[in-house]
């Protein structure tokens, strides 16, 4: 894909948005999308049954309580579009019993405009490795030969119980590593119909790759 001159970016953005499939990522959410995301998030909180990742789940293991192989450290990967992130934000605030004002929403949308987050649920390979998430990195999003690098952040690790197949208990640190891609200067990437690849390296330097079609996601 050829680079688009900066002066033509607004035009390119408009063109890209105009040609996106119906379920394409919206770099700037419409009022209807904002209302829908907030409504969905609040409804999930009201049900009190956790946050349903739904179609945004890119990868997930079937049983995240049992560990049969200590080489397994990735539990799930989710695609965090501006719509999905607002939905999750609304879910968290509703869970906390806090309001989401129009001002808060606008601020959130500004921070997430034309961004894409890949959310990776992970656990450590041993109880001793509390800092394991600090070694995750090298997040790349490659679509049509156009690659982007991600900013990486992670939650504080939390110690929790896992089980071996024989029922014995294991303690492992778990948390969420987020790879954040800034797509402001490449709206075409955000709406690319072509398959994209998300890759990153784990705490041992192992490379993980996941194919995705960004056009699938709102």
């Amino acid at each position: 894909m050829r680079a688009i001159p900066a002066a033509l970016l607004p035009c390119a953005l408009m063109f890209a948005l105009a040609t996106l499939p119906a379920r394409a990522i919206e770099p700037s959410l419409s009022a209807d999308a904002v209302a829908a995301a907030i409504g969905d998030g609040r409804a999930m909180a009201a049900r009190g049954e956790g946050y349903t990742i739904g179609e945004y789940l890119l990868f997930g293991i079937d049983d995240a309580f049992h560990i049969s192989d200590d080489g397994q450290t990735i539990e799930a990967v989710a695609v965090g579009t501006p719509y999905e992130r607002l939905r999750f934000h609304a879910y968290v605030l509703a869970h906390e019993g806090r309001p989401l004002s129009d001002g808060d929403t606008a601020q959130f949308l500004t921070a997430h405009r034309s961004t894409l987050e890949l959310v990776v649920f992970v656990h450590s390979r041993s109880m001793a490795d509390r800092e394991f998430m600090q070694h995750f990195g090298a997040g790349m999003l490659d679509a049509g030969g156009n690659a982007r690098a991600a900013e990486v952040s992670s939650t504080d690790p939390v110690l929790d119980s896992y089980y071996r197949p024989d029922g014995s208990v294991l303690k492992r640190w778990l948390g969420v590593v987020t790879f954040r891609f800034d797509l402001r200067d490449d709206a075409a990437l955000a709406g690319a119909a072509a398959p994209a690849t998300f890759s990153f390296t784990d705490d041992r330097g192992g490379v993980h790759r996941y194919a995705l079609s960004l056009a699938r996601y709102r």
Partner: protein
Amino acid sequence: MRLPLIGTVLVATALALGTNAFASSKDDWLGYNGSYAGDRYSTLTQIDRTNAPHLHPVCAFQYGELGPAQTAPVVAAGVMYVTGEETTYALDAKTCKVRWQNTYASTGPKAALANRGVALLDGKVFRGTPDSHLIAIDAATGRTLWNVPVSDSSDGSNTAAAPLAWQGKVYIGIAGSEDGVKGKVMAFSAADGTLLWTFSTIASGDDPGAATWGNAAATATGGGGTWSSYGLDPATATLFVPVGNPGPDFSADYRPGANLYTSSIVALDANTGKLRWYYQLVPHDYHDWDAAAPPALFRGANGKPMMSFAGKSGILFTIDYRTHALVSKVPVTTILDADKPFTTEGTHFCPGTLGGVEWNGPAYSSHDKLVYVNAVDWCSTVKLGEVRYVLGKSFLGSGNGMGVKDAQGGTGWLTAVDPLTGKIAWRYHAPGLMVAGVTVTAGGVLFTGETTGEFDAFDAANGKVLYRFNTGGSIAGGIATYAVGGKQYVVAVSGNQSRTSVKGGGAPTIFVFAL
């Protein structure tokens, strides 16, 4: 919160109250709480409110090891039985001299180092072990008679509780809610350790109460451990089990519903293990507010049988034993933002995860008509985080583990309450945590201890300090009183080293006091 009876079984109460329903002699202290009824009341009167200032230590027994010291001394016919991590000691109750000791060798992972004591029946001493076994020891010789596994400790389950024994049966359950253990209570044959029945403290499948788990999968790791001891009404063959918090502790959305029978007092048919009724202190708990301690059964000043109990939520409940109607509900420590949801910035709440009433519960004085209970006053801050992925969902919970306790440390309360009115008669605010047993006597004296090391004797009527002795170690175990050869003694367990001994320390030591 009172919830309806399950089924139609009503307890035709003929509670043998007013006397020590456990003891063959008023000179003995025959179980974790002194009696089956668990009222922690002794009819001994030699030490009274006039002479208690003349108490002094008469002997001490040093374990010679470090670790938790949470055992509840049990005394019968001049012999005191106490436990360490793996060793059981029979001591001369007058001199603290060792008559025998039995050291168990764990064969599996040690899931708990604390042990809260023994049960006695038919010449046998029963205790749990660090690797979740139940053993029987000959009370005369210290020889191990039988040894049976209660659970596989490799899953984190443990038998830290003091068992209770009655009519040929030994009752003990498993704990480990923080490890995702699914709690249960079991009865074993006192003769040979044969398993007689099992009751799951987590309702699932066709169990009554299963519908209170909105996510049935959550019952697999539901918590509901039981880790202190039990109570019993011999007249109705009813076993009382305090049940701990649901798991995961703070991810409430993973387990929508009331989550029976967690954070509850459960009443079981002691012969069959069938559920009779329950009282849930905290429906849908998300603060780690176990019902940790067994209840106290007593006949109130109105002549009616009553039951008092309290948990880590810091509230002392008294209910009518026959109808289960709430009689009084009294906060016995600081309660703050108990219903406030967790936030990502952190939610400060009280009691914290190490707050409220811990493993030693209330006592009732038939002499002064008051209920007494110790409690911890220590708040925590839990930060909400996205902590668990399960089958296409993510769940919020504590993003900072068990939370952060207030940096200035905790304090403690000893509270005396009129159970019929809920009126607080008096309170004592301790500089350290109050987790030790509370024992009250017909002499009008209340004995307890503090994690700062003090053994205390209070005037049970008004809270006046009658005697205080610093043992040099955190007091977090049982306090018992008994008589040998016509002389009354009081025993305190000092030197607890565990997460609660922030202001304590020392090494496990038994102190015996007398006039």
